[in-house]
């Protein structure tokens, strides 16, 4: 309608059902579906390690970011590294592949994050649980603690507190084993991890190590 003089009919054209329809389709992740395979992504559990600057509020930023984007976070641990200016954040998430890549990229985007990497399945992962059971059967408790290579931290007439370290599976198993005594309370730390062998955990670390240790 360019001259404003005429009376037009309004929008016209073939109705939706009369238009050519494309035959393709995408998944809910926006991936084009290959009609042959129709593959969908299943969630998997993995560990991301982020090296971050020790600035106030960084942890809040990271945890806020992961939660507000609705990623399925299993655990998040933080602690300083050999460099007092940096901390390592270890995030365990369970997500389909596109979600994992998204968490990685969102983390990398935080200005105070130096480097992020997903650790391989062979990474060294450890978790600590402190648990307190009823103390009626101290010998049996001791036996289970020994079985899992744990340590007794406190033993009284009514309660016994032990610590177990290990990978996630071992901690789960140990907790199951202690259930027979009645677990009063427990505290798990969540996983922390490093890449295995000579491999660096995040890219930035190799660079820094070389800078510092160069003759």
């Amino acid at each position: 309608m360019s001259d404003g003089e005429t009376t037009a009919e309004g929008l016209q054209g073939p109705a939706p059902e009369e238009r050519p329809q494309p035959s393709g389709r995408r998944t809910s992740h926006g991936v084009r579906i290959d009609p042959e395979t129709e593959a969908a992504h299943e969630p998997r559990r993995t560990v991301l390690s982020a090296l971050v600057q020790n600035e106030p509020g960084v942890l809040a930023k990271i945890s806020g970011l992961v939660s507000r984007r609705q990623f399925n976070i299993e655990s998040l641990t933080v602690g300083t590294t050999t460099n007092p200016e940096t901390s390592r954040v270890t995030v365990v998430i369970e997500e389909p592949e596109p979600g994992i890549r998204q968490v990685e990229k969102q983390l990398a985007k935080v200005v105070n994050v130096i480097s992020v990497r997903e650790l391989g399945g062979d990474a060294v992962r450890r978790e600590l649980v402190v648990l307190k059971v009823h103390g009626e059967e101290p010998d049996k408790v001791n036996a289970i603690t020994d079985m899992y290579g744990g340590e007794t931290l406190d033993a009284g007439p009514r309660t016994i507190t032990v610590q177990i370290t290990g990978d996630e599976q071992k901690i789960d198993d140990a907790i199951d084993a202690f259930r027979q005594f009645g677990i009063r309370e427990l505290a798990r730390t969540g996983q922390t991890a490093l890449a295995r062998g000579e491999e660096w955990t995040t890219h930035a670390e190799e660079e820094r190590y070389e800078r510092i240790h160069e003759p």
Partner: protein
Amino acid sequence: MSEGQPTQRAEEAEAAEPTEVTTGADETAERPVTTGAESVARALERAGVEHLFGVQGGAIMPVYDALYDADLTHVTMAHEQGAAHAADAFGIVAGEPGVCLATSGPGATNLVTGLADASMDSDPMVALTGQVPSDMVGSDAFQETDTTGVTSPITKENYFAGDADTVGDTVGEAFALAREGRQGPTLVDLPKDVTKGATEREPEAGETPETYDPPERADSEAVETAAGVLARAEKPVILAGGGVLKGEACEELREFATEYGIPVVTTMPAVGVFPEDHDLALEMAGMHGTGYANMAITHCDVMFAVGTRFDDRLTGGVETFAPEAEIVHADIDAAEISKNVHADHPLLGDAGTVIEQMGEAMADERAADMAATGERFQDWVEQCQQWKTDYPMDYAMDEEGPLKPQFVVESVDRATADDTIVTTGVGQHQMWAVQYWTYTEPRTWVSSHGLGTMGYGLPSAIGARLAADDDQSVVCFDGDGSFLMTLQELAVAVREDLDITVFVLNNEGIGMVRQWQDSFHGGRRMASEYPWMPDFATLAEAFGARGFRMESHDDVEGTIEAALAHDGPSVVDAHIDPTENVYPMVPSGGANGQFVLEEDQL
């Protein structure tokens, strides 16, 4: 509704102009920094800031005091939300971060909507907020709010200023971050003891931190592969997003598209990056995009998407978005790659640089297979032209019947120059303003896209006005509902004597909601009709602006002329057909190619 005469305020403002004291740049250099607040002011001057938008208050007072001597103009807004929108629009039009200021507590929280808006649209903006003294932080002191906590998810980065010596550096860094890489709003929270604290340190030139390293050039192998895919396409489409504008890549886009003859579709923030009167322009795609743009993205076999985040208003349901297309996605933000739509060929880099890289690589491809490109695209371009004929943007109009909003938009477009800036509120009027105006230049379309903020129109017109060239016109299309949300900023437009023309497309209700209720809620119009509305023309006069009322098609031309002729703010209360709806429409989550043209097709 006075005729012809400028308002008294406007006259006073004009008279005051020649006597205005100017603080020269030389004086600035001689003014030593003695406090944190002065260091903040110096950092702003260094960043080249000319205008600030804000509201005074206890915790920000030391900063304002330092601004008293600074070489900057401050516009006192009626509400901090207005300050944030004005700064945001300033940033869109100027391409440099706009700045807003607010005091702690309620001042800072009133900025939140504007920050969220700028964040969704990646608009360059810097917010400075006052804060209670450091030793009172955390004690729920008077007007204390955890501003960095509240704004963390809606800023690109925010800072709690630590001490007087470094506060200026922090402001400089906030500036650099707001404008570099993917642009966005940054915020610096300024505790009163820090701004009052003594320092003699001149702030350093603002730089982004070392850990921030946006990519510039895309990986050349990836570019070659992507160029090959695009060159061998049969039905290619360029999807230009706001990143093209933010990356100053409009020229590169135009050259690339015309060189290879590829049709261009834009997202809403990118309206104006490619001239809409160009043969290859298919205009905006998505929920209320053109039928031809939506047909093209539905049927393309390769999509070269640049600087877009594939918002759901654009994609509809992702399962049906460009279902047959291989997607080449260029973006400066890695986190946008495959976030909503999987990218088959990601190109990480600056929009302009990547388009140039693609251009060079395509030239090689074409040399290798000359006939393959040009001619094959020709059929597709013709197909797109055919869709333009099949689904023209048009509306029914009876000269004697109620006023059609589309006609008002087209008439204002006809009456103004090509470089006229249009700002809007949010709702049906916003869609008519984008659909029925022909945008031919970048940075002339200023709207709230990602957040969809009612009330954005008038304050953004104020920011746009101050960023625009003097001979450029600024018009605002607003809805009656949207206008009601921030119309107090008229007081500011009058006080500052800003030449802005607001067209309120008044349908006595919140039309977009009513349209959805009629379409998807069985016509149960809960809280969407306003049984009474103020007379906006009289209201405008009360503020000291010019007011007009427009009711029939015969009024349109004369009223537009008179309103535009007024050198200062004016408001046209245009009483439009309340039954008019926005089409085409892709119902949310639907398939773009299944856009409906009228209610019966829903």
